[in-house]
Structures are given as C-alpha cells and as structure tokens.
C-alpha cells in the first residue's frame, strides 16, 4: 500500500524563483497494484517516483509505504540506467545481492537467470561502456529485480528497448507481478503499454505537474497478446490518447 | 550522398576476444534521403551512426559523405542527450553557433526559435541537471538543428519524449527536411515512426550486427496524420514488425 497525501515538490532555480514539479497530490495505491503512469514530458512523473523512493524530500505532504521493517522496500529502474561504470554487467546486477549479504553461490544462479531473462547472455563480463543503450537499460531492469523488493518503481524502463524485447519484457513483468504480488509503478510514454500492463493508470499533466485523472483498468488477467484485441483495451488506449492530447 | 562500402566495426573486449558490432556493410544513401533505421537492441545501429559521424574509426571499409569542404557536415543527436553540464539550456543550444563564429544577436533569435520548437520555453536558463529526461533530449535535438548541418544523424531522439511531443516533433522534422533537403538518418524502436518518417528504411539484425533489408518507402509526401490511414502505411508497418520478430 502506498498512501500519498498532499504530496508536493518544488525545485529552486537559479535566480531564486522555483518550479513546481508536483502540485499537491492525494492518492492511494493498494498493495499489489500495477500502476502505469503516463503524462507529457516534464509533468513530474520521475519526480513522483523519486519522492516515493525517498530520493527527494517532499516540499509538502506525506508518503506512507507501509512496508514495515523491510530494509529495502523499493527497487528502482532509473530513467537513464545508472550502472556503476566500474562493475561488469554481472556485478552490477548482483550488486543488490552482494550488499545484502546473499551468498555468492545462491546469488550467481539468480543473477544468471536474470541475465537470460533480459537477453544479455554472453555479455556477463562486459562493462557498461561496452553496451548499447538498450542493453544498459536491460541490465538496470535486471538489477532492480535482483533482490525481489515488494515495491518496484520503473521510470521508462523499456524506452530504449526494441519492440520484440519490449513485448517479451512486458510479459515477463506481468508474470513476475502476478506470481509475487509486488506493487509496481511504471512510467511510460506508450499508452498501449500503459493499458496492457496496468491495473490502474495515472494520467498526469504539466505546468504545474499534477495528477489529472486515474483509470481503474478492468481488463482481465492474465493478459496476453490476445488482450490487445479486446474492445476495452482499444477504448482505454484511445481514452488515454485523448487525455494526453488535450493539455488543457 | 552517403556511400558506405565494406564498412565493419569490431570492439575489443576484456580478455582479448572481440565483438563484431557491425559486419561488413555496403550501402548507398542518396542525398536528401530520410532513412529510418530499425533493429533489435545491440544490433549496431548506434555504432553505424557513430561511424558515419566519424566518432568511431571503422575496423574495415570506407564511408564517403561527399559533403565537400563543409566544416561540420553532420549534426548528431546522441542516444543519451549529452549536454554540456556546465551550460544552461540556451548556451548548450547556442554552442554550435558560438563555436563557428555566429554573431550573438543572430544566434539568439535562432536559438529562441529552436527552444520554442522543442517546447523548452521558460527553461532557457536551467542547467541540464534541472531538466527531466525528455527535456534533456529535446534540448539535444535543438542543438543538433542549431547550425543547420546538411546531414542529421539522430539516435532514438524521441524515445524519452511523450506521445504528443513526439508527434509534433515528427511533423516538424518532416517539415525541416522537406524545406532544407537535408539527409537524415534516424534510429528508432517505433516501426510506426520509422514508416511515417522514412523515405527509406534500413532493417538491421544482430549477432553480428548487419544490414538485413532495406525498404524504399513510396508513401506520398507531405506526410500528415492522414498518411497513417493509408493501406500502404499499414502494410509497411506490419512488414517491419515481422522483420523484427523473426531474428533469423
């Protein structure tokens, strides 16, 4: 459960005036929800995720994650990968495990599984600078999944990834979500992806960034490529498209 | 005109063995073409663009840009923005002008025009770190356009940008292209975008990266949202999709 009340964030700019990146927002995300977040560039999506992860201090309001005493409540896929340049792909992915005391042997199996999942087999020992943009992003996704956090925050995880990989990863993510009951927040610019994945969709709008609308998606699970043939899916996609078109 | 013959590139990896990022490729891109490049992640798209721009040395083969004595034949939009972190948005966009001796006043007007075009009005004085991911990419697009190079190389320029902005920028790019007759090479993961924009489409495939197929697109210009209703467009999109699905 993620409970957000009165949450706002403004950034100081040069010269003293400030930008309101997120105007006060109240929202409640039930445990186990899969929330897709869409909205135009600069509307505060990343800021919202970073606030939830505790990476920014809120200018106002509160967030309650209700994850109890878990050390790492959230996993985060950053918008720009953020791999440690001095570690190989394998070591980057294993990093969350290494730093929480998981045994090497146990970790290795898990890491190899993830590497295969994101299609980086053969690049285990490559350094981040030796990867393509999409490969870096996939490594970052694998890292976020490594230690199985109850909440997963993903900031445009698939934007640099090709169609096929994207679809595969979409389905994998759905499977993981259904198996584990994680709460997932995923930012995307693709309304199709938002509709296909989300149990709920947050539409945000800019200047100042705020929550414009939320959809509860009642497309059935498990979702499969067949879902995309459902009329409800198409209706939702065109609703979302319209929401994004009229920026007031 | 970009003439590529026998072009290949391999990267050395730790331990001495090397990755063939691009296996020998022959291709001829006529002057004034708009080439969309699609292909799975890691298939060598970025590498190809970087070779064309002269940012990497080829392992074999040659590239001939035939731009004569022009000092800066290519503009480049990098996959991950790459703004100078110490310069404001305005100064970043003006950088190509400043370094080619354009007068401040003349430059200013041009720069403001570009800032408006990419929708960064109001953020002229912000530093890169104060921008959202999409805003950074838009600033990078504006910079590449600033000094009006005859060849424009764009590596997933719109991947971090929302739907609406993306469509606007697509149309702007088409307009610029038609008005100036630039040669444009654009990498994208969206087959719709590839089909909508390109006069020609290169489909690449991985392991090792190579040119799998080229399409000559005969959809009429100027392209407008109506183009997306043409049967030819849909046929092309599904062809491309199929090409990308069967990795051999």
């Amino acid at each position, binding site marked *: 459960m993620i409970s957000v009340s009165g949450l706002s964030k403004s950034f100081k700019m040069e010269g003293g005036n400030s930008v309101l990146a997120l105007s006060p927002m109240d929202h409640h995300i039930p445990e186990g929800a899969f929330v897709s977040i869409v909205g135009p560039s600069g509307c505060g999506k990343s800021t919202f995720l970073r606030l939830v992860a505790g990476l920014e201090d809120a200018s106002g309001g509160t967030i309650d994650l209700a994850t109890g005493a878990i050390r790492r409540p959230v996993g985060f896929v950053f918008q720009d990968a953020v791999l440690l340049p001095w570690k190989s792909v394998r070591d980057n992915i294993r990093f969350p495990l290494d730093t929480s005391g998981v045994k090497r042997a146990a970790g290795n199996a898990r890491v190899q599984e993830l590497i295969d999942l994101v299609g980086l087999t053969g690049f285990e020992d490559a350094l981040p600078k030796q990867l393509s943009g999409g490969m870096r992003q996939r490594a970052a996704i694998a890292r976020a999944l490594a230690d199985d956090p109850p909440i997963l925050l993903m900031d445009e995880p698939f934007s640099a990834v090709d169609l096929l990989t994207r679809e595969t990863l979409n389905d994998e993510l759905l499977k993981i979500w259904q198996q584990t009951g994680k709460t997932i927040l995923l930012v995307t610019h693709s309304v199709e992806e938002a509709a296909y994945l989300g149990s709920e969709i947050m539409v945000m709008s800019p200047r100042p960034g705020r929550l414009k609308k939320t959809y509860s998606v009642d497309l059935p699970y498990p979702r499969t490529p067949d879902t995309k043939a459902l009329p409800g899916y198409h209706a939702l996609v065109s609703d979302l498209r319209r929401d994004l078109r009229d920026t007031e | 005109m970009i003439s590529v013959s026998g072009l290949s590139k391999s990267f050395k990896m730790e331990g001495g063995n090397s990755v063939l990022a691009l296996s020998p490729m022959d291709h001829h891109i006529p002057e004034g073409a708009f080439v969309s490049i699609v292909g799975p992640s890691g298939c060598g798209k970025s590498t190809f663009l*970087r070779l064309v721009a002269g940012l990497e040395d080829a392992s074999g083969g040659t590239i001939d840009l035939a731009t004569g004595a022009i000092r800066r034949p290519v503009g480049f939009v990098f996959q991950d923005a790459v703004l100078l972190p110490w310069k404001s948005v305005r100064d970043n966009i003006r950088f190509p002008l400043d370094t080619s001796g354009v007068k401040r006043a003349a430059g200013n007007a041009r720069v403001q025009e570009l800032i408006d075009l990419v929708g960064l009005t109001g953020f002229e004085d912000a530093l890169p770190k104060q921008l959202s991911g999409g805003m950074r990419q838009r600033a990078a697009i504006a910079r590449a356009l600033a000094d009006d190079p005859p060849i424009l190389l764009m590596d997933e320029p719109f991947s971090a940008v929302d739907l609406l902005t993306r469509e606007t920028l697509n149309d702007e790019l088409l307009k610029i292209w038609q008005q100036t007759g630039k040669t444009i090479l654009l990498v994208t993961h969206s087959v719709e975008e590839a089909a909508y924009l390109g006069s020609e489409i290169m489909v690449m495939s991985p392991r090792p990266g190579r040119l799998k197929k080229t399409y000559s697109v005969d959809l009429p210009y100027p392209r407008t949202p109506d183009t997306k209703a043409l049967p030819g467009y849909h046929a092309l999109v599904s062809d491309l999709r199929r090409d990308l699905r069967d990795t051999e």
Partner: protein
Amino acid sequence: MLRVLRPMAEYGVALLLLIAAWWYASGPMEMPRYLLPSPQATMATLWSMLLSGELLPHLWFTLRNILLGLAIGAGTGIVGAYALYKLPRLATLLDGPLVVFQTAPKIALAPLFVVWFGLGLTAKLVLIFSLVFFPVLVGALAGFRGIDSRMHDIAKLLKLNPFQRFWRIDMMAALPGIFVGLKIGAVQALVGAVLAEWISGSDGLGYLMTYAGATYKTPLLFGAVLLTSTLGIVLHAALTILESRLLAWKVQDGR
C-alpha cells in the same frame, strides 16, 4: 552573499578556537615562553610591527612571491598536463624525469638554487615554481584523463579547433582535478616562498622567521607563522569559493 559569509564566519570561529587553545596552553597550562609564547605577546609584537610600518613590506613581499610563483607554476602545470594528456608519447618519455625532478627534496636544493640563480627574485620564483608545478600538473592530468568521453564526441562532431576544445570543453570538464592541484599547489607556494626567504634575503615572512628563530624572539616567530598560515587560509578560502562558483553545475543539490 550569505553563501560566502557563512564559511568565512566558520573559518573565523575555528581560528578563534585555535587561539583559545593556544592561550590556554601558554597561559593556564604554563608552556614555557620559549616553546610557546602567549597569543597576547604574539599579537602585541605583530601590532607594534604593523604600527612601525615594518610588517606590511614583509607581508607584501611574501604574498607577491606566492602569487607570482603560483600563477607561473599553475599556468605551466595546466599547459604541461594538457600536453602530456594530448601526447601520450611525450608522457611516457617525460614521466620519469618529471617525477625525479619533483621528488628531489627542494629543501636540499634550495641553497643550490641560490648559487645557480643568484640572490635575487629569480631563485625564489624558481623554488616556488618547482613546488607548485607538479601538484597542479598531476591534478590537472587526472582531471583531463577523467573527462567523459562523450564530451570528446561533441568536440569532434563540432570540429572544434584545438583552442576552442581546450577552453570550452577540456578545461571545464577537468576543473575538479585542476582545483585539487591548485589547492595543494597554493599550500606548496606558501611553503616555497617561506623556504626561499629562509635561505637568502632579508625580506618576507620567511626571513622574519629565521631572524626571530635565531634571536629567540618567539612571539615574532609565532606571529610570522600565524601570518603565513593566515595567508594560506585566505588563499585556500579564495580557491574554495572560486571552485564552488565554477563548479556549481557539478555540486549536487541538497548535499
């Protein structure tokens, strides 16, 4: 303004604390005067020298040498680092001699510098230069070598000429490293200036120290040491302020 004033106030507080500890050691703790004069005596000595007009010429002499030496050393250090960075061949050849030249203890060579370069300003500047050059070189080299390769892509794409590339990209990107070198270099310049005056001449804070040391004028000795350190602190603070100005884009918000 406040951003500048606050650190200055804190530096001031630190100095006051230091002087308080000093006062305690020389007063209540009764450290003998020839080991540690009281701050009052030290200040009184400085004050009377200031009033008699003796102090400022010494202070200025040292300060001028420091600034001159620092400027020359830093300039050549940065340019040298850039040359080594751009010409790796040169770097491989010059690495050894440079380090050997640098590790040669200047205190041992200082008397020879006097013999080689005469009794005037040259020998002093050579000494300061020899101390400043290397830290700046090494710091700048680390800075240049650490430049994000994507910055080079931009330079290459825009076909920047070497001059533009140096000023507009490489210098900016290497600034953190350069400042590391400059801060160490500034301290070294100070040490060098004092050492030079120690070896020859009858001007400057270093000279005052030798004179005071030889004649057991410990208040003057400590006064001169204190002034030297104050110069060091001012120099360091100026560099820090400059650094935070020039590197504002790099310093993280909220840290």
